[in-house]
């Protein structure tokens, strides 16, 4: 059964059809072609698919597209201001935290949500904010550096 979903993505109103069982991740990637949000485990374990949903970071792979109806969603495509990168994006580049980069959009979204909540996060808050994001390339050192740098710059 197809339903129509009306939602706001990165400040833009969108409306499109989806099956009742379609995940928000599939809806974003396959229907709307927001491919910056990544698919990995599809079970809510890795954070590659993180988007901001009404101000909170969520795993879009385990969220139904239907739940996006009337919601405000921010994806990685919505962070930069034209050519000017969001400070979190810039910090990930500057610290060498982007190896393959596949986990990066999910991290940046989680960190943006954190820094929207608190400007001066503690080490514990940083760890907590990205504890649901897996990176297989970096061993996490440079990701922590990036988050700290972004927090400093904000």
């Amino acid at each position, binding site marked *: 059964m197809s339903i129509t979903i009306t939602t706001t993505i990165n400040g833009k109103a969108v409306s499109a059809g989806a099956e009742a069982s379609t995940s928000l991740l599939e809806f974003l990637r396959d229907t709307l072609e*927001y*491919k*910056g*949000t*990544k*698919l*990995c*485990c*599809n*079970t809510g*374990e*890795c954070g*590659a698919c993180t988007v901001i949903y009404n101000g909170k970071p969520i795993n879009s792979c385990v969220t139904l597209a239907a739940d996006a109806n009337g919601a405000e969603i921010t*994806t*990685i*495509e919505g*962070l*930069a201001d034209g050519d000017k*990168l969001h400070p979190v*994006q*810039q910090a*990930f*580049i*500057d610290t*060498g935290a*982007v*190896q*393959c*980069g*596949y*986990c*990066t*959009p999910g991290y*940046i979204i989680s960190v943006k949500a954190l820094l929207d909540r608190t400007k001066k996060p503690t080490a514990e808050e940083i*760890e907590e904010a*990205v*504890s649901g*994001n*897996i*990176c*297989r*390339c*970096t*061993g*996490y*050192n*440079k*990701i*922590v550096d990036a988050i700290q740098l972004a927090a400093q710059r904000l």
Partner: protein
Amino acid sequence: MAKAEFKVVGTSPARKGGVERVIGKGIYGIDLMLKDQLHGGILRSQYAHAKIISIDTSEAKKIPGVHAVVTAADAPDVRYGRSYFDRYILARNKVRYMGDPVAAVAADSPAVVKQALKKIKVVYEPLPVVIDPEEAMKPEAPTLHEDMPLPKNLPEGVKVKNVCSFAAVRVGDAEKAMAEADVVVNEVYETKMIHPQYLEPRIAAAQVEPNGRITVWANSQGPFPVRQEISKTLGIPLNNVRVIAAELGGGFGGKGSGITSGAAIEPICALLAMKAKRPVMIVLDKAEETISTTIRSGAKLYIKTGVKKDGTIMARIGKVIYDTGGYSGFGAQAGGRCTNMLGGWYLMPNCHIDGYVVYTNKQVCGPVRGPGGPQAAFAVESHMDSIAAKLDMDPGEFRLKNIPKAGDKIVGVPKLRDVSLGETIKIAAEKIGYKKVGAQFIAPALGKNQGIGIATGSWIESAGPGGGAVVKVNEDGSVTVHIGKIDMGTIPGFGIPLIVAEELGVPVEDVTVVNVDTDASPWDAGTVGSRGILVAGTASRLAAIDARNQLFKMAATQLECSPEDLEIVNKQIRVKGTPAKSVSLETVATNAHNVIGEVIGRGYFDNVAAVAEEKAHGSSQPFTTHACIVEVDTMTGNLKILKYVAVHDIGFPIHPVAVEGQIEGAAAMSIGQALCEQVIVDKDGRTMNPSFVDYLMPTINMMPRIETTLIHGYPGSGPYGAKGAGEIACVPPMAAIANAIYNATGVRIKTLPLSPANVLRALKEAGKA
């Protein structure tokens, strides 16, 4: 080599391709979508070992929206493999692990694909399953490959079966030396199977062009090997196959190529596209990957060492049982490397090791990051501590007593050119908190249940083959570089642009390294074996120098001087010492259109010459020491890594931040294997933890800060004296952590992982919990 000689290499500018990745516009394999594309899916065996009696695809073909269903009968009767041709892209007659591809479907939507896969009727005759490689070697074990002969080099009188390959180390007279030793330590270690678990699933997309050629998009580490496999298994000449590399979301050896990945999804996808006469894309599901693509093998390691009272190592006798799974995959290479490395990287005058690479009904061995090395090192470096304990010697001191010096040989390496091993041990000891008092190292005072552990490692880079690079100078003075290696956080984004910028006197921003397209890129084995900087780095440097020579030759005519008098600075070609006499790079590159057409520099890494050089002068391979402080919770078995240092000699670091990143990532992978990772297979061959819900990997909460120290050592054989850095940090972590547990509790754990349950069990058995 002094850093000051260089302007660009040795600095760490932002990664190329960083911006598109942080804004969500990096096009990874999984982001592709071809016009009119169908979705492909693979039917995998539900038995770990069975005869295929029949496959009936008629019902599946009738489903509306299904465009093609293929089985082995649709493909040429050609087997593939790295050294042993023991496998079909789709199983023929038999399946040998639960996950073996049997059939494939192309349909309008993923839902229809699923439906069609369910409708394919395969009649199997189940066969006895063997999971443990030592069981598989026994005469009563089921036979996995009826038509694969036993290796010819098996020692005389050895009665075994299911052995895929055999490796032997024979140095001196180990039996005799062992008998003469003062102290003998005899142990058995075991490591488990892990999956590389790159985050981006494997994909393949294929389309038949109007002229009959086939284009395949792959997120593989080796586009050229993929091209070769498609060509071989489908019987299409190489010039009619084009493989285009998509960005890779990680690989770690698991995306080595179709053959060694054990996935063969590229040829299967191409076959579907040919049958359906429509473009097809296959995306593997993560859980499907865990059960079907290649893994780091588990290994059983028997290790016995004889030493003199003063700590001099006399002899080692060992045996490696290396589990290659249902097919040979990369087993012969990884198992061979593991066998050599069980001989260690210390002085070893007498050594006798037998390495058996054994077929079992499990996932197939792949070239996962440092293939064979971490397993061997877990045994070797844990064992070194056991020997030191028996001798009542400090583990660091015992190691230092046995380190080779320049000109010495170690097992598997006839001659070392330089040895930074001792230096890495000393620096790591200091960084982890040892105080040097005279010649003695004094361990730091630690809290209750805390222990300190060190472990060393080395890695061989001379595995071959070579590879090329093409450097084109465009008419505006910008530079386009073609290499055959892909970017997965590796050299195309980090080191190569610096090398080319250095040699051509252009800003790094003006250099573009384009992604691999087998129609245009020079041949290369792919981003594998820590050989990125060695092969493509050398090739790019030589190609840039070749381009520079062409530019200088043309500029010399114009400036009325000799090419030797010229230099390029900031895109100006000028006479050394007379900077006013100059012409812009842009002008010379533009004028080239009228003379040589285009400035195209060509370079290559000559592996034959490199091997000859190594034979003559010795190997200048990387060495490392890791050290850590671990706290053991004796109530729960939980480990906390309080401090972790990694000291590496990787020669000259071309992009130090990238090198650190490789070291941190590789160390994290082995720390994961030490603490929690394992693919668990039950007695029927079923993977018990295929999804990320059950397959535990290190998260940020588990990982210590890895404090990396780079020492330059003797120049490596790469450009500017660089050495490969992608794999070696996988070698020491498991033993370093196990040694710290031993230091904390006196309990030696010889089987991975060092999970809370396993640690607690070991502590209880020793009466320490």
